[in-house]
């Protein structure tokens, strides 16, 4: 048992002091780096959220613009022109008369 009293704090496995100090220095810098990253994270999140909002708003704007254009075209297409209104108001005889008119019958050409 005496030899066990002589072991003291020695370990059967060893690592070089230089290696351990490099490991410590690496871990220390990593911890500082992680903390800096964590501090920057909320700002980045804000910026990302702002960028997403801008893209969404732009998308919505373009969609609205195009929808409005389509509506204008559609409304233009569905609107009844005064000529159509006039033609719709004619009786069959009047329409037939219009179809078989002589150029001289038109007052301006007299």
């Amino acid at each position, binding site marked *: 048992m005496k030899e066990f009293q002589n072991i003291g704090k020695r370990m059967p496995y060893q690592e070089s002091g230089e290696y351990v100090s490099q490991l410590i220095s690496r871990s220390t810098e*990593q911890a500082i780096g992680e903390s800096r990253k964590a501090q920057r994270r909320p700002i980045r999140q804000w910026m990302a959220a702002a960028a997403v909002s801008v893209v969404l708003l732009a998308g919505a704007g373009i969609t609205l613009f195009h929808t409005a254009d389509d509506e204008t075209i559609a409304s233009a297409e569905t609107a009844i022109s005064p000529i159509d209104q006039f033609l719709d108001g004619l009786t069959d005889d009047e329409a037939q008369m219009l179809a078989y008119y002589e150029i001289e019958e038109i007052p301006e050409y007299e």
Partner: protein
Amino acid sequence: METEIRQEQLQEMLSDPQQREKGFRLLMKQYGEALYWHIRRIVVSHDDAEDALQETCIKIFHHIEAYRGEGKLTTWIYSIATREALTQLRKQTHLFQSIDSLGNTLTNRLEAETPMDSNATEVLFQKALLTLPTQQRVAFNLRYYEEMSYDEIARITGKNVNTLKTNYHFAQEKVKKYIKEHTA
């Protein structure tokens, strides 16, 4: 020889946001190696010790603001290191398996990490320590290797001082018995 910085001085630097990083570097320079060996004795493998040490560094720096300076700074950093080392061991257990059941795994790891020409008595002593329940082994290490007071160990392990004293006595007896049985 580098001068050791007093804990109060380090504490002061760590509580000042302007000097925190510098204080942390000094803290790790001063206690990093001791923390590494404390972790290594718990997890045995170098790779696990490296992972646990990295996590310990991150936790210390991240939570440094939460440290109120009520206890010793070393007690606080050893508490974090101990928890990280135990977490590292817990990762190696299966569902519902206790870390105490890792004894054989750790003994195998000890043999793998030990060079062929290492001192047989030192190996046997470490094997004897690995037969102790984990919490008892941690307390034994803190008392035997780090020469901490029972009050400090109680703060780190969250155990009662009297329980720790009794445990240390039983641990010593168990280690002696193991060595006796394994030496012709």
